[in-house]
């Protein structure tokens, strides 16, 4: 069994808002759903499968299914943190392959900016029943210092520098300048990043992503339906997902779950890293990108610092154009979850609908990669490979 060629991404939509104090989270979910359906040329009545994650209001899929008045025969609310939507796209393809649904809707939305969340710098306990809580919470674990510990170890082990990490933000800024909705559209230099205030050693403020309201949605359909639609068909050809954790205290913080999910997805797709024309890489922080690029095999493990330097991730300049919408680092990080926008920009690239200044020529093969939760403790990883027909 494989999902290769069994489903197509027919509709995508990224909400243009980055600040939505006047809208509820439920309304944002519904707006992105309608946007993606309109993009596909389908309606709400066509949807028979609904996929959401932890950002959807209420537990599981029931609340949003009712709000949008969907008539469903398949649901999936797998929660993998920020990478959920990369995985849910593959789950949708699997459900379609099994005949469980024909038209799958995946939604994400949230308003951390309006709600004033100190997303990365406040220790948060999510569930007191988590058995690890007593061993982490007293030590002031936040999002930022968890990722920072990965960066510190990577620097120690491989000689990676702050300047090399800064290149990832610089590349994202080169792309964001062409995105009218980007939160940080200004082109910046390496010095701007390394001279910005340190949040958690060795990560600076500009090593971090933005905090934004908004959302996005995907519509994934069976091949027979895709053929009747007018949008350029984007075929799902491979996927992988895993959890990487602390393994009883015997872990390596310089490797992400992508080391596992990359090979699984490449094997299913029957392609290799060198074949990929464009990558969307989840960019909660610069270090997140560096580790995943290495783990996916785009360069040797530990050589990521050299690989990302000197504009190698800038479209039209470097060898591996990434996050051409500006990514989470400069454009949008709706609901503190970057997986959805990763898939959306990959689809734009495969359709040839990215901004002309960043569109990759002959982009027929793209990869979206995400990690969710906390790279410094336990995280989920998902890889999705897509092909233009």
């Amino acid at each position: 069994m494989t999902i290769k060629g069994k489903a197509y991404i027919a509709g995508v939509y990224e909400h243009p808002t980055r600040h939505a104090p006047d809208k509820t989270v439920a309304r944002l979910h519904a707006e992105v759903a309608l946007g993606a359906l309109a993009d596909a040329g389908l309606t709400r009545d066509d949807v028979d499968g609904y996929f959401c994650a932890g950002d959807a209001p209420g537990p599981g899929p029931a609340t949003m299914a009712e709000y949008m008045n969907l008539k469903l025969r398949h649901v999936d609310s797998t929660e993998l943190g920020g990478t959920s939507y990369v995985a849910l796209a593959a789950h949708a393809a699997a459900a379609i392959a099994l005949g469980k649904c024909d038209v799958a809707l995946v939604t994400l939305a949230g308003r951390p900016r309006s709600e004033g969340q100190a997303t990365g710098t406040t220790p948060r306990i999510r569930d007191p029943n988590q058995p690890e809580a007593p061993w982490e919470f007293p030590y002031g674990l936040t999002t930022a210092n968890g990722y920072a510990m990965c960066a510190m170890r990577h620097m120690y082990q491989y000689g990676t520098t702050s300047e090399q990490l800064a290149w990832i933000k610089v590349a994202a800024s080169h792309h964001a300048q062409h995105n009218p909705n980007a939160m940080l559209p200004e082109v910046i230099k390496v010095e701007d990043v390394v001279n910005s205030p340190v949040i958690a050693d060795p990560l600076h403020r500009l090593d971090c992503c933005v905090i934004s309201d908004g959302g996005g949605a995907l519509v994934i359909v069976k091949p027979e339906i895709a053929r009747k639609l007018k949008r350029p068909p984007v075929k799902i050809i491979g996927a992988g997902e895993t959890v990487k954790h602390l393994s009883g205290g015997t872990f390596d913080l310089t490797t992400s779950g992508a080391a596992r999910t990359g090979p699984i997805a490449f094997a299913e797709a029957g392609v290799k890293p060198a074949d990929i024309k464009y990558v969307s890489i989840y960019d909660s922080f610069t270090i997140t990108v560096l580790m995943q690029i290495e783990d996916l095999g785009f360069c040797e493990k530990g050589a990521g610092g050299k690989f990302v330097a000197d504009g190698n991730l800038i479209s039209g300049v470097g060898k591996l154009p990434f996050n051409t919408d500006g990514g989470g680092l400069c454009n949008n990080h709706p609901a503190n979850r970057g997986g959805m926008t990763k898939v959306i920009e990959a689809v734009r690239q495969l359709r040839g609908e990215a901004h002309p200044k960043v569109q990759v020529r002959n982009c027929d093969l793209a990869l979206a990669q995400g990690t969710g939760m906390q790279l410094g403790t336990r995280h989920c990883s998902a890889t999705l490979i897509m092909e233009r027909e």
Partner: protein
Amino acid sequence: MAATRTITSPLVSSENQAFWNAAKQGRFTVPTCAACGKAHWYPRAICPFCASDKIEWRAASGNGTIYTYSVMRRAKEPYAIAYVTLAEGPTMMTNIVDCDFDALRVGQPVTVVFKDTENGPPVPMFKPA
């Protein structure tokens, strides 16, 4: 030197009560499996390596080295979160205290010190050896 930061109390459960009882007496113990002989972290009732429930709280040396760390500069009172690899094997999350944050380095030898929490048992932290 580090400013004094209020440390949140750990949540005590049936699964970790023995650790905190020892901690109150200043004893640092590491959960070790009597079946496979391996020490693990974070502490749990079922061995993550062989799934046995024969877990013993063995007295540990309190010695280790810094695997990685990060000074949270953005906090009102900066603090150093870290992972320390214990002489007994496993690597644990902790804080490095009683030190000059700017002099910390990966690989540095450290030794355990218990620090009081808001209203619970003291938690194990580490200082330069």
